[in-house]
Structure formats: structure tokens, C-alpha cells
């Protein structure tokens, strides 16, 4: 006997109970705590914070657990919570030159003032299934050596384009999460979109620019990971007060130069900044940022990564996941309409074929 599918309350409740059971696993094994996730899966938590646009490791850890490790679900959860929070204002720009790097590498110079610092990284770990050696001496090396940005070193020789043109003002950036977006965007808005964008998507786009689809040909000028202080300037106080510290990963890419007979050749840059430890994302972001600046440098737009509208309309994984997954929702009515039409078209086709045969005969 055929029973039409009806989404009853009971079905939903049962589905949720089953989901919870699947997520709990073997009840004989202790459940993972939020602190364990925050402390032992810091890279995952960083990603959820970055793409969820909310710095809160505990909350992100809770989202990861709640979503059984489904990153996109966790990001959705964090973002949905975020919109319920009142906004008091905007913090001061963070000063990444002042951060005491836990990790700092430059691929452009063998030695730099302040030195290179490998820090906590998967680089150079051979991906072998062997027992990790965790008992070595751990020197976090967080000495107070000043570490000027590599881009500033190059910039002092005018080899690298300045952060912004001398005659350009720095208007308050628009807030992508509060204001409607209109293309073309400002670079500040674009960077917000990229920071929230899906790591996998940006990685693929960044990779495509390296392989020749909108060649950006970069050098990693500097990648640094560390904690910075966040300050908030409350108008009634008249001076900025520190709110606390956050961990960030910053990447400055140095790209092929521009220049012609009128202006001397200069390297150009791409920029990436994410919460926590997220080098892959910060690097991808800076590749795509540079590719999207094609207009500024009168470059031909020939590749997907250079197309602002294409990139930013599809970078948001919460949007993308929602729209792809909405296909699971019932579409009985529109499908019925299509069915009706296709049946009619087929009938017409056969009728015509029939009458043609008659004419031929």
C-alpha cells in the first residue's frame, strides 16, 4: 500500500533523536567536552570562528560538537547566533606589526630583522603514521624582538606599492554584515567577504591563479601568527580601552610587478587576515585579493578568480550550502507544473510525427 510522505511532528522529533544518538557514538566511551575541542582541535575551531565571523573559541567548539564535526553547520550556527547580538560599535584597527609572533616566516629573504620563526606548523612534518615526538624542548621563542613587517622593509625602498596611495583617504569601511552590498565593492568590503568566504572555495580559486588562470605569480612576503590586542574607542571615554587579545594569522603576498615607461616598476600585494591559526585560508585570501585588483592595474580580466561578482557571490559557504541543500525541500508543486508541460510537449511531438508520416505516405 502506498503511503504519501507527510512531514509530521513525530517524524521530525524522531529524526532529531536519531541525530543525537548518531552524534553520541558509543555510550560506553566518555563524551568529548567543549574544552577538549577548543584545546585539541584549535585549527578546526579557528576556521569556524573565521567563517562564522565571531571570535569566541568556546562557542565555536560548542558549535563543532553540536554539529558532529560538520564545519559548515557549525559556521551556520555561529553566524545565526551572532546576528542576535547587539552591536556597540567597531574596534580600532588591530596593529599586526606589534604582535609577538608565535610563527613568522618569509619566503622572500633568507634572513630578516627579527628572524624567521617556524612556530607550531604542520610544515616539515613528514606525513607518516609514526608516533609523534611531543616531548622535545618547546621554546615558544616569544622574545620581545621587534619584527617589522617584510612589506614595510620592501616598501621603504619603494619596491613595493604602498598600503594605500598617499593622496587617498581611508574612509570608514562599510560593514558587509549590516549594509546591502552593491557591485563593484570597495577593497575593504571585498576583504570582509573573502575573510568570511569558504576556505575550500578560496583555496581552489587561489590555486587557479597560481596555475595560470589569471596569473598572479606571488611570493609569500610574510606569514605571521600571534596574538594582538583589540581596542575599543568608546566616544564617552575619549580614549581607546583594551578589550582583550585575539589570535590572528596574517599573510602578505608579494606579486609580480607593474610599471611602464611613466611609472617605475613596483611589486604589488595581496592581503589575507583570519582568526586563529588558519594559514591556508589567509594565503588563499591574499591570492584572490590580488587577483580581484585586476581593475586597479589595468589587467585583462580573463579568469574566474579576477571576477569580483563571481567570486564574492559564491564565496559564502553558508549561502551556498543553504541554496544547494534547499533542493531537499519539497518541490511537488513546481515539479507537477513541469511534468504537465513536458507531457504536453511530448504529445505534440508524437502528433506531429504521426501527421508527417501520413503526409509522406
Amino acid at each position, binding site marked *: 500500500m502506498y503511503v504519501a510522505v507527510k512531514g509530521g511532528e513525530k517524524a521530525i522529533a524522531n529524526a532529531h533523536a536519531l541525530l543525537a544518538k548518531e552524534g553520541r557514538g558509543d555510550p560506553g566511551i566518555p563524551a568529548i567536552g567543549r574544552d577538549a575541542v577548543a584545546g585539541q582541535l584549535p585549527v578546526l575551531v579557528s576556521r569556524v570562528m573565521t567563517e562564522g565571523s565571531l571570535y569566541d573559541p568556546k562557542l565555536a567548539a560548542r558549535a563543532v560538537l553540536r554539529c558532529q564535526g560538520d564545519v559548515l553547520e557549525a559556521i551556520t550556527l555561529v553566524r545565526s547566533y551572532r546576528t542576535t547580538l547587539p552591536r556597540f560599535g567597531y574596534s580600532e584597527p588591530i596593529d599586526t606589526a606589534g604582535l609577538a609572533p608565535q610563527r613568522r616566516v618569509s619566503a622572500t*629573504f*633568507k*634572513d*630578516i*630583522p627579527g628572524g624567521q620563526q*617556524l612556530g607550531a606548523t604542520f*610544515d*616539515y612534518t*613528514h*606525513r*607518516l*603514521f*609514526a608516533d609523534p615526538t611531543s616531548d622535545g624542548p618547546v621554546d615558544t621563542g616569544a622574545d620581545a624582538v*621587534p619584527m*617589522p613587517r617584510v612589506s614595510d*622593509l620592501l616598501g*621603504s*625602498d619603494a619596491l613595493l606599492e604602498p598600503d594605500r596611495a598617499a593622496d587617498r583617504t581611508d574612509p570608514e569601511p562599510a560593514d558587509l554584515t549590516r549594509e546591502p552590498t552593491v557591485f563593484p565593492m570597495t577593497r575593504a568590503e571585498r576583504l570582509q567577504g573573502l575573510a568570511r568566504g569558504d576556505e575550500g572555495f578560496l583555496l581552489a580559486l587561489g590555486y587557479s591563479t597560481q*596555475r*595560470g*588562470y589569471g*596569473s598572479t*605569480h606571488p611570493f609569500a612576503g610574510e606569514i605571521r601568527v600571534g596574538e594582538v590586542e583589540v581596542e575599543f574607542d568608546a566616544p564617552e571615554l575619549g580614549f581607546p580601552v583594551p578589550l582583550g587579545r585575539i589570535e590572528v594569522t596574517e599573510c602578505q603576498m608579494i606579486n609580480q610587478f607593474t*610599471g*611602464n615607461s611613466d611609472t617605475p*616598476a613596483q611589486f604589488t600585494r595581496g592581503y589575507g587576515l583570519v582568526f586563529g591559526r588558519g594559514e591556508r585560508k589567509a594565503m588563499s585570501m591574499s591570492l584572490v585579493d590580488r587577483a580581484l585588483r585586476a581593475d586597479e592595474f589595468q589587467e585583462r580580466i580573463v*579568469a574566474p578568480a579576477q571576477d569580483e561578482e563571481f567570486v564574492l557571490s559564491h564565496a559564502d559557504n553558508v549561502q551556498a550550502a543553504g541554496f544547494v541543500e534547499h533542493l531537499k525541500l519539497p518541490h511537488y508543486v513546481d515539479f507537477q507544473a513541469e511534468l504537465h508541460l513536458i507531457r504536453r510537449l511530448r504529445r505534440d511531438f508524437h502528433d506531429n510525427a504521426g501527421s508527417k508520416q501520413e503526409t509522406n505516405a
Partner: protein
Amino acid sequence: MSAQQIEYNIGYLDEQTKRMIRRTLLKAVAIPGFQVPFASREVPLPRGWGTGGVQLTAAIIGSDDVLKVIDQGADDTTNAVSIRAFFNLVAGVPTTTRTEDATIIQTRHRIPETPLGEGQIMVYQVPIPEPLRFLEPRETETRRMHALNEYGLMYVKLYEDIAKYGHIAKTYDYPVLVNDRYLMAPSPTPSFDNPKLHQSQALHIFGAGCEKRIYAIPPHTDVESLGFEDYPFEPQNFDQPCAICGSTGVYLDQIITDNAGGAMYACSDSDHCERTAARADNEEAAT
């Protein structure tokens, strides 16, 4: 319950894979400069970090071999140290930093300053094997261009450089014509090193892991860097000597020494630099 012990084959790759790579290599040697596709494998470092070079080394290395690994010319850079440690672990072969003692030299970006000899093999880690890639991103097109010996596009690019900047603006991965037939990317070695490829006594093999290509320059092969009659190929050169060992005519690294833009220049080939400096010290002590 204890975790299952995992053991790796000698040289890391399994024997069938090594055989497949050696066959590809034979074809590559037989057609100098031609990119031979191969079924690249995952190895325990990220794609693009020298996986092609690692696979080539793994396929040819034997117990008689002595391995040297350089990155940016230096034996002491992190990536070189890491890959050397890897082969020491999985192949159990001796390693060296002395160019002439090595039978296999895996490299990223440099050809040693010490001239290579008969029987030595240079293994290159190649990120982008296709010299035409940045002019034409599609592989289907570039393969056709190679087949037809149609390299006009590259000459146009070099011509445009001259028109725009007054000289050819290609500083590394400078395209070469191998054995008068195939246009080849010498991997991101600086153009300074290009002349070392011409009629070299050593075998040069190139592995691109991501892009799944292997190609080669057999010993005693003509390798010509592209240029024009009136704008011939000119390798980069340096005016000053190395600040540490005093060598001239070698490739130098810029080392930033202070925040005010101060810098010194020293050999990128650490083996060459150390030995030249030591020799100078000895001579000084003798006199």
C-alpha cells in the same frame, strides 16, 4: 588495544610505482625536453613542496647512492633538511652536503656552483612544468603547440617584454629549447643557472608531482636559452663578490641586516661558500 604498526617500503614508494616512474624516465630521457605524463602518487609532504622530486628520487635511489638535497642552493634551509631527513629515514642512504660526493642531488631552484660530473643525477622539484602555461592556461592547447613546434607565442611574450621594459623581464624559469626541438621550463632556477644545463655531463631529470609530468635532459645535450639576434639571452649576474667567502661570478642571496634597508649579499650555494671560505682561511694560515 595498541595501534597497528605501519611499516613503509624501502624508499617509501612501493616497487610497482618505482617501476612505473623508471619507465616514464626512460621515455623522458629518450625524448629530451618532452613532458611525459605519469601517475603521480601522494607522498608524505604537501603537493607542490617537491613531491615530484621526491618521487623521482625514491624511484632511482639505491643503497650505493649518496644523496644531497638543496633548497635555494643551500643545504641548511628547512625544506632541504626535512627532505634529507626523510630519505635518511625511509631509504637508509648516506647523505652529504658536498656536491662532488653526491650521486643524486635533489634541488629546488639552483644548480650547484661546483661543476657537475659524469654519473651524477640532478633531480628537480618542478611546480609548473609547462613553459607556455602563463601564456595559455589550457593543457589541451599547449600540448598541441608542442606537437606542432609552435612556439611563436613565447617569442611574442619576450618581444613584448623588450617593447615594454627595454629587455626580457624573465628572471627565473627562463625558457630553453632542448636538443633543438622542445621548449622546456627549467623549473624556477634563476636564469643565472641556465648555461649550466647546456652540454652538461650530468643527467638532469625534472619531476612535477602536482602536474603529473616528468621530463629530462640527458648528458651532452644542447640546451639553448631563448633570445633574439639583437637581444640575445643574458643570464643575470652580480657585480659584487660574496660578503662571506669573496667568490665572484656566483649567485647571491640578499640578506637584510637591519630595519633601515641595510643588506649584505652572500652565496646562495652554502656548500660552495663554506668551502671557499675554509680554503681562504687555510691559505691565510699557511702564509
